[in-house]
């Protein structure tokens, strides 16, 4: 996906960019509103991440202007203020959602997913691997005629595998990416989800294999 990140704090912007690129997204970074205007005018983005306090103005002004020029790209506001007092203004001005700093990337991801789903984006994001068609936005898996609805953790696990076929993921890495840092989970919890995915994938030419002592890998049978 293609992101426009409007954030004046350069180290935070760099970190967010790095983190988004890790998941294979394309990111343009605008440090202020005027650069953001230029970017928004010249390229199409799937999502705009917008900070509120910017050196050359208020992020809400950009939001208003964006909506006034019929910009349909969904906007998620990054706010550092108290959730309550900012909420009203931001959502009323046409933001699709907001997230408070510091944020959990899986929460940001979940919010992006929810916003894009609401905007009806998705079909272009379908991923095909072997005989399996996976729609991360809708959370569905198609194997031939069969359609399976995935739970959130199953969906994210499948996304991790499908984005890097044949790569071996250790249990601990998968735990990091699947569970929030609040949850104390044993690495064995991963086995439950891998087991469920295997059941969903039964009948296709895709299989998840256990590499003893190293982890799991998804590949074509």
């Amino acid at each position, binding site marked *: 996906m293609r992101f426009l990140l409007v954030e004046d704090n350069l180290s935070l912007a760099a*970190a967010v960019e790095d983190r988004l690129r890790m998941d294979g997204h394309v990111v343009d970074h605008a440090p202020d509103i005027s650069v953001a205007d230029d970017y928004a005018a010249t390229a199409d983005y799937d999502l705009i991440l917008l900070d509120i306090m910017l050196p050359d103005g208020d992020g809400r002004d950009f939001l208003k202007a964006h909506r006034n020029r019929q910009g349909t790209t969904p906007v998620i506001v990054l706010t550092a203020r108290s959730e309550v007092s900012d909420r009203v203004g931001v959502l009323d001005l046409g933001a699709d959602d907001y997230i408070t700093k510091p944020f959990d990337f899986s929460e940001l991801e979940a919010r992006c997913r929810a916003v894009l789903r609401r905007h009806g984006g998705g079909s272009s994001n379908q991923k095909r691997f072997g005989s399996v068609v996976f729609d991360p936005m809708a959370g569905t898996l198609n194997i031939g005629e069969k359609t399976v609805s995935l739970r959130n953790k199953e969906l994210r696990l499948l996304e991790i595998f499908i984005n890097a076929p044949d790569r071996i993921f250790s249990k601990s890495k998968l735990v*990091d990416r699947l569970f929030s840092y609040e949850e104390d989970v044993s690495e064995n919890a991963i086995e439950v989800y891998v087991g469920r995915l295997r059941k969903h994938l039964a009948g296709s030419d895709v299989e998840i294999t256990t590499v003893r002592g190293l982890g799991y890998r998804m590949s074509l049978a």
Partner: protein
Amino acid sequence: MSRGLPTSGSIRRRLTLQLVGSAAFLASLLFVIVLSFTRDVSQQTHDSILAASATSIMDSVSVRSGEVSVDIPYAALSMLGNVSNDRVFYRIAQDDSVLTGYADLPLPDGAPPRGQPRFDTLHYKGDSIRMVTLARRVSLNGQVSDVVISVAQTREGQAAQLAELTRNALQLGLGFFMIAAFLAIWAAQSSIRPLAELAEAVSRRGPKDLRPVRRPVPSEMIPLVTSLNRFIERLRVSLSRSEDFIAEAAHRVRTPLATVRTQAEITLRRVERDENRASLREMIRAIDESSRAAGQLLDHAMVTFRTDSLLREEVDLGALSRELLNRLRPIAELKDIALHSDLPQTPPLSGDPILIQNAVRNLLDNAIKYAPPESDIQVILRKEGAELRLSIIDEAGGFPSGDTDALTARFARGANAEGTIGSGLGLTIAREVVEAHGGRLTIAPSQATSGPPAASPRREGSCVSLCFPMS
């Protein structure tokens, strides 16, 4: 508002007392003047009749063959009988010898005036009498002799008349006093009214209304209103400055925290060694904890601030909960927690929407945070009598004790909170909000089988309810 303030009397009472006091003084003065005037008039009338009687007797005095002879005309005494039924006395004397009449009728002190009638108020036979004395000099056998005529009448009739006059004067004075007192109270009331109106207009304002007072006031009140406006302006500036300060402070603290957290997440993806990974996880947890605590402390400060002067607006609890659920759904989905809601249309309640939203959000946050993955959370709104009850039912195992007070104390956390990030202010905030609205927060173990869809067999949990009274 003035409760507990020392008062230095009431302007209205003082004004009323002063005006009523003046009215009383003027009424008494009026009474005295009217009384003395009418008394004089009545006395003069009486006196002139007495004088006429004495004069007509005097006219009948003649000197016949060297002797004074008096032929008292009938009318002289009967005219007095016309005035009242009082007894009449008379005496006719020549020099020192009484010719006829009551010899013991007291004589006025001093010489009788010549030509002019003299009036006296005296006592005779135990009664008060009014007496006129008239003297005339006659020549008798070449000698000068004084004929003195006194006519007197008891004063009972006059006293009765005087009592009547006094009563009339008293009624007049009292009537005047009543009218004046009524006007005084009205005047005090109406001169104090602009002050009362200003006070009401200011106290009727919502807690967020910091506009200057613009209503027209009497010129005497201009200095008061000017200083009030200056005060309001200072308050507004200082409030907005502290709001800006909090926003700025939060921004300054949270932005670097966000950088650190993101970097830590990236690093966690890259490092392989288990002990490094464990410390990175710890780091992220600490960041989450501090930012959540900061957020809840800010929330709590705001709740305390706003409950001091509660805003009253119509709040649709169902719509508000629905919006919150939509917002929290992505987070719940991360743990595969299903949020079910049963939010029928209910009458609005009156309160501060931001506070109520904050309370519900804190409860939902808690529920999502403590609930196990792949569990259900139900949000149910019911109208129960004169109450709206919003219940949040989770499957988090329930609170160890049902002691609401202990659980909602600041920074208290249930025993199942082990290993979960939180500052323990969520329930406190919710409770303070609902109590500020005159409601209550209850915590109960949730029953096993009530309510809509339970996808998986229901596990034990708790049911936290906010009960708001309807206006």
